[in-house]
């Protein structure tokens, strides 16, 4: 069996209370046994029962009198563990230094550092996780926000699998019904079957649509919402920006987007993740020149999921309407397929509102006082996470491969509906029902995908 023993830190590397180092593989117990001693100084792990916890110390194997940390060690023997291999977990104190030190001791005792996702890979290969669960683990690892983590964990618990299994079971039953009626028309009648199937198709389609829609939300949960702030100079973009950034200083990454070719900053507002696109550009514009930064921002807006239009409402009382909105309505028309929010900024200066029909939700806002900030968050949340309450157990599709399979199955079911509309004989229905069944099966690995091996290789970086 391929079972090089691997180890990795399996808790977040931060100044938390405890840190966990997970060791998995056929040598896991031996390796940890070398560096773990009981309070009495004995190496006791060799013959312990599965699913037991032991108190003691991680020591330097070259000099066992050096205690690296005091810890609890849990032993879970194959196959009753996450990876279905022998697994030992070391619960040590949570400081970054201590955890790293314990890990390096484990590695020096003979384990190899696990690649990202390698525990899940093993769990998948050992039949402990189905494909969608394994993919969810990958998603968990790369998730950026709490909600995203929640969605992935939800998937991990097999929610998607069981949802998909339910639909598949229903489809299969109906395929079987058609087929048995073909084989045994004497005993199984198809009278009234079309009407019944029509009703079922509507149910399946709406379930699948819901999952697909959740993918949109799921993507936003996972990757954040690509957001652009547009506004004339002095409309207050910078202060809005600062407000957004100031709410939570969690600037997670500065990534030069590979596809977007713009600079993004990721910020988190409660559970909302925003990728502010080209924020540097906006800052520059505000600082430098007296011109509408529309041209530059337009480019950014093309790639955005959300455009926040910052309008200087303090001008509303003195100037005419077109001054307030000049440039805005045009660009709103141009990006009418994007979601947008209008912030009537500087509401603290003037409460008179322009009499304009914006095609978007309008929020009376003050970057200075913070008025309207809560509404902004609510509005974004409603727009992008509709249907997925953060605390609910709603199933969210977070994976592109799953989405593709869902879309394929939707198309097949639509074909079935068309066949019914055209009064096709029942034996034609099973062709497309079968396709739908098999597309759904690919999501959970119950139907074999042509490219599965490739998919898994890329996902789990196998074959290195």
């Amino acid at each position, binding site marked *: *069996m*391929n*079972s090089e023993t691997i180890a990795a830190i399996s808790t977040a590397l931060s100044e938390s209370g405890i840190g966990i180092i997970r060791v998995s593989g056929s040598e896991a117990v031996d390796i940890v046994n070398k560096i773990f001693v009981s309070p009495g100084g004995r190496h006791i792990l060799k013959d312990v029962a599965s699913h037991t916890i032991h108190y003691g110390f991680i020591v330097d194997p070259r000099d066992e009198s050096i205690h690296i940390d005091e810890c609890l060690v849990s032993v879970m023997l194959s196959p009753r563990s996450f990876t279905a291999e022998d697994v030992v977990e070391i619960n040590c104190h949570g400081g970054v230094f201590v955890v790293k030190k314990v890990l390096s001791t484990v590695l020096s005792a003979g384990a190899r550092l696990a690649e990202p996702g390698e525990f899940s890979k093993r769990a998948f*290969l*050992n*039949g402990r996780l*189905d*494909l969608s669960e394994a993919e969810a683990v990958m998603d968990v690892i790369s998730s950026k926000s709490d909600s995203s983590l929640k969605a992935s964990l939800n998937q991990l618990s097999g929610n998607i699998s069981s949802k998909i299994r339910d639909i598949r079971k229903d489809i299969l039953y109906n395929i079987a019904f058609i*087929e*048995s009626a*073909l*084989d*045994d028309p*004497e*005993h199984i009648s198809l009278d009234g079957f079309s009407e019944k199937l029509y009703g079922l198709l509507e149910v399946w389609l709406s379930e699948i649509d819901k999952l697909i829609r959740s993918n949109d939300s799921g993507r936003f949960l996972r990757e954040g919402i690509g957001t652009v702030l547009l506004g004339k100079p002095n409309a207050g973009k910078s202060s809005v920006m600062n407000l957004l950034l100031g709410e939570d200083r969690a600037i997670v990454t500065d990534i030069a987007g590979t596809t977007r070719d713009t600079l993004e900053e990721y910020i988190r507002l409660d559970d909302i993740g925003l990728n502010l696109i080209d924020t540097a550009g906006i800052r520059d514009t505000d600082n430098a020149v007296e011109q509408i930064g529309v041209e530059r921002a337009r480019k950014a807006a093309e790639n955005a999921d959300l455009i926040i239009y910052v309008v200087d409402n303090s001008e509303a009382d003195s100037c005419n309407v077109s001054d307030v909105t000049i440039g805005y309505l045009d660009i709103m028309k141009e990006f009418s397929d994007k979601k947008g929010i209008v912030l009537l900024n500087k509401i603290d200066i003037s409460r008179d509102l322009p009499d304009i029909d914006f095609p978007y939700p309008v929020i009376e806002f003050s970057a200075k006082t913070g008025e309207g900030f809560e509404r902004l968050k609510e509005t974004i949340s409603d727009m992008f996470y509709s249907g997925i309450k953060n605390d609910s157990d709603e199933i969210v599709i977070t994976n592109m491969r799953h989405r593709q399979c869902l879309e394929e199955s939707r198309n097949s079911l639509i*074909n079935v509906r068309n066949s019914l509309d*055209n*009064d*096709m*004989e*029942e*034996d*034609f229905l099973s*062709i*497309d029902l*079968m*396709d739908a069944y098999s597309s759904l*099966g690919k999501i959970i*690995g*119950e*139907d*074999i995908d*042509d490219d*599965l*091996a*490739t998919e*898994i*290789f890329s996902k789990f970086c*196998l*074959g290195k």
Partner: protein
Amino acid sequence: MDVLKNTLCENYDVVVIGAGHAGCEAALACARLGLETIIFTVSVDSIALMPCNPNIGGSSKGHLVREIDALGGEMGKNIDKTFIQSKMLNVSKGPAVHSLRAQADKQDYARSMRKVLESQEHLTIKQGEVCEILWENIDKNTDPNSILTNGYSDEFSGNSDEKVTNGYNSDNGISYYSSAEKRIIGVRSYTGTTYKCKSVIICTGTYLNARCLCGEAITYTGPNGLQAATHLSDSLKAMGIDLRRFKTGTPARMDGKTIDYSKLSEQKGDERVIPFSFSTDPESVQKEQVSCWLTYTNEETHNIIRANLDRSPIYAGIIEGTGPRYCPSIEDKVVKFSDKDRHQVFLEPEGLYTDEVYVDGMSSSLPEDVQQAMYRTVPGLENCRIVRNAYAIEYDCINAKQLFNSLQFKNVNGLFAAGQFNGSSGYEEAAAQGLIAGINASMYILGREPLVLDRSESYIGVLIDDLVTKDNREPYRMMTSKAEYRLLLRQDNADLRLRKYGYKVGLISRETFDEICEREKLIAAEVDRLKNTFVGASKEVLTFLESVGSTPLTTGVSLASLLGRPEITYENMSVIDKGRPVLDKRVTDQVEIEVRYEGYIERQKKQVEHFKKMETRKIPADIDYDEVPSLRIEARQKLKEFKPLSIGQASRLSGVSPADVSVLLIYLEKRNTH
């Protein structure tokens, strides 16, 4: 056998054991391919006997007959000569499930087939029981290419024409022979004669250690009171072949003079009969037909059955063999469909020169007195007299997992098996396997690749693949639902699908093959023309559309898209299609189907692509499943036992889950990259 002083010894290429529907096709194929062939039967009078239903074809079985015919088999031709009624079934459904069924004159059918065998060059008919199969161990050290040492490889010319491009398995046929440790060298008959041969085809049907049950009355005979074959089983076991028991049954035959037809609904044949064989002249089969008759069981029938279930050998536990679910006895139907207050019963004449009538739908193993009471509750049968009792028959057969898809045993080179011995049921299923076994026994002797049809190109492929990969716990019956790609596997295009293979192995003539190639071109050209010929909303077109009750046109459309409308046919469209070439109906029928169902056909072809991808992912013969990490124990066992040749085949094994297949795929991928 040593006690026998008989020292007679004869030489053949192929020995066929059994002359039922499998044996006949097997022997004819071998002899037609030029191999000296001998066929054994316990009684020459029982060649091509139809011991059960008096018909050939029917749903999906009709497909098999047409495929047999396309490959160069005999069944279709023989039923065309001897049918007494013919009907295309399911015409109200899609073209995939249309299926031909013909009532046979049983005696005429058997007699006619016997004549064909007797007239066949290179074929010897022998009455007698084969009791021992002779084999030797292959010494792989001294005989590395044992399969190719049969001496014929240079002499045989065959039809290795380059025009046949989608040849089968040209990459790894060798693996069909390489795993065996034994090789066939002959057989010995009960009377002591040795017949040396290179290949044996077992087609023993229901005769091996057979016993018939009619209630408490048990006789140790084959069907119809014929002598059972009681010696061969031991010889097979000695070769390491596992046997099991299956059971099947047949209904009673009534004296037609005692049936009151006035109470029955008449079932006539088609007005225009379509022949089974692609080479039968359609005019030659237009003749007077006899009728079948429909009646029903009722609550009274069911009550009698229920009251006597304890006297049925199956329900009383006397029968150990497993019976077919899809050809159930009336007892089974009453038990399983307890909510149905009646079941169909078809009364079918057994021939023109007998009054016997077959009671289709009421096979049974209940005792004689219960049978009589039960049959007499059925309208029309109130005063019936039973000529032959219904009975169940139990027999030795194999789990066909011991065979390759070529129908050769995995552990014995040159030993093939076909028909009910492989765990199937039905004449057509038997004949199809017989033909393939005959072809492949010949290919083996000639040192050529076996013919293996896959699931995407034929019902025969589905049948054999199901037999050799699935856990069949009861006699296997061909059914439409078992063919995944049935829209492509229609009975109307069997010749277009399979003639090329018949030609390649040498059973189909060059002339016939050329005609198929030509027809394919004509079909493609006409489909193309329809797609590229446009009509507008002219007066002529609108008049036509109105006349067939179709919605008027507003813009120009292609003739092909008009043909997509259900009310428009290729034929009635001729009034608006002036430039139409004169084409044979066999061409235009295909054109119509291809155009009308184009979207479905395309989607099904996509499914086939996916299937083919899996089939072409070969599993190397030297794979060690113990080395594959993470396979579940059950899957590991099944894979080791079955040794699938491709990922596709592995995925169809019972006990191998998709997750196991994924693991296997990953292992192979990894192996390839290293």
